């Protein structure tokens, strides 16, 4: 029973990592860049919800606030691409990495100025009540996290496989020049994917804030989401979710069975092992390096 409880709570945490990792993968899939600020996007999305819902700020109804927050984050993602990242078009990936790290710093600073540095709680209807079946206690928030994550992943996966825009995004990343020749508006497609990543980050943020307290350094779970994305193989959406679940499940078990001090090493150690032995993840998409 103990094992089952650990497994389920790990699953719920893993889903949040998976959602942040989905954001990485989305942007990587469409632009070949890695958004190191995705964790901070999530934090910002959660804080926008706090600002809309909590009584000391605007005190809106939760279900009314969700679409507003999603639209705000989508706009922000699109504007970031329009104003900042589009100017990086045609430059090295390294420059984009450093730029997004800097963006993360700025987002953290702005969130700190607006919402303060104290931990906050989101007044979320998801945060109420526990469900127990057969000795296993699971909060409503955990169940909501798992359900929403699975639905999101399926939707995004189908979006990339089936829709015209999804295919255009894949084409734009696989060969920018050829995509241009095929009449794909590469820059606008990339803007769309940044907006989508903003939405995913916002969903992750709302779920994260429903599960516990939130502060401006919450964005650092982005680093664990990296582990998730790498384990899943950057560029694979179901892989990102799987990676997130693996990291999420390993954590409570390591905390339970390893001596103190060693337990928090586990996700990063796993990340390093995967990078060394399977550099392109467990769901690899690269077979040969081309010139």
């Amino acid at each position: 029973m103990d094992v089952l409880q650990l497994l389920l709570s790990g699953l719920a945490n893993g889903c949040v990592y998976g959602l942040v990792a989905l954001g990485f993968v989305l942007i990587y899939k469409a632009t070949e860049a890695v958004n190191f600020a995705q964790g901070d996007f999530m934090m910002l999305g959660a804080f926008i919800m706090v600002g809309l819902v909590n009584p000391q700020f605007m005190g809106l109804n939760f279900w009314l606030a969700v679409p507003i927050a999603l639209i705000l984050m989508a706009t922000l993602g699109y504007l970031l691409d329009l104003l900042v990242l589009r100017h990086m078009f045609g430059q090295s990936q390294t420059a984009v990495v450093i730029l997004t790290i800097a963006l993360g710093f700025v987002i953290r600073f702005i969130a700190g100025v607006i919402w303060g540095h104290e931990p906050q709680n989101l007044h979320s209807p998801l945060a109420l009540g526990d469900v127990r079946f057969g000795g296993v206690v699971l909060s409503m928030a955990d169940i909501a996290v798992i359900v929403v994550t699975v639905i999101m992943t399926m939707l995004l996966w189908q979006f990339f496989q089936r829709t015209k825009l999804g295919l255009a995004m894949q084409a734009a990343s696989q060969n920018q020049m050829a995509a241009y020749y095929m009449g794909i508006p590469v820059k606008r497609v990339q803007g769309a994917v940044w907006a989508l990543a903003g939405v995913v980050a916002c969903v992750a943020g709302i779920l994260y804030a429903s599960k516990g307290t939130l502060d401006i350094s919450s964005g650092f779970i982005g680093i664990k989401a990296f582990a998730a994305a790498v384990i899943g193989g950057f560029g694979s959406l179901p892989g990102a979710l799987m990676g997130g679940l693996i990291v999420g499940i390993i954590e409570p078990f390591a905390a339970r069975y390893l001596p103190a001090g060693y337990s928090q090493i586990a996700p990063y150690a796993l990340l390093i092992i995967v990078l060394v032995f399977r550099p392109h993840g467990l769901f690899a998409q690269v077979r040969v390096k081309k010139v």
Partner: protein
Amino acid sequence: MRFHFKTSYDHDIRLFPDWYKFSLYAVLLLILLALPWIIDSFYLGEVTNVLIWSVAGLGLMLLTGQTGQVSLGHSAFMALGAYTCVNFMEAGLPFLAAFLLAGVVTGIIGALVAIPALKLHGVYLSIFTLALAILADDFIVILEPWTGGVNGYFAPEIWVFGIEINRWAAPETWYFLTLGTALFVTLIYRNLLRSPLGRAFAAVRDSEISAQAMGVDVARTKTMAFGLSCAFAGLGGALMGLFAGAFNNETFNFLISIQLLMMIIIGGLGFIHGAFLGAIVIAFLPQFLSIATDVLHITVPGLETGVFGMILIAFILFEPMGLYGRWLKMRTWLELFPFARRDMFRRQKSYLKTERLR
């Protein structure tokens, strides 16, 4: 405008291209040597801080600027340098020997770490090194017998040839120690660039595949770059830890390595001058901001990192060559006036192609 008429191959690799350059740097050195008698002890401490950051920055510059491998994990190697240096000193070695040995040990461990990372490119390498930087924090706590765990270490007394290096009683001793280290590291760096190894670094940075085709052993070159870079970072870390007076697992957290990377980009990636210019920005920005907030009577928590991020974004968007690159452009414009053209420094753009097949 000066012309260089090269009559032998040695002209290509001389330390200073002409007497003018040589005298310029000689004057700079003289000013630096006379600095303790020119400015007061507070600013001398700040300059010492600048020099310490530059030593660590030169380490990262060698890896990122010269060899093109982005590392977000240099704080781990700085911590390693600091802890090995203190441990050697506790074991009874004189400071200078412990200090240099700390650099060597850090370099060897850095090279060993690089071996599994050799296959990793670009983003994957940054994530790998970022994980190292985060793990370093936990390992420092676990290895308590050598590191003092969360309680950390108090820097022991430092004696060099019978002179006590003391930050408070005699700030000029610390200044000369760091100046000496910075000169030493800069000289090694400069000489490296003139050697075949330095050329190999640049070849690997520009294109691994063409470097391989030209007969460069890419794996060996990358390992050497990692080793040397970590050795410099270790020296910088040892100085930083000892200068701070006390350090524990929090002193060298992963934000330090991100700051180090930002520093060399603001200074100018791939230039020795860039490491120093970046260090000046990073060391004086907090002072400048605290003066500015005092004048305006406002307090903004976290302002430093926010402003730092904004400066970095501005540099990447508008001046990717950094401060030194800006200076180079201005100098070229003056030297060639009125024949300088904007496109002389234009960067080559490339269209992306994925390495993924699906």
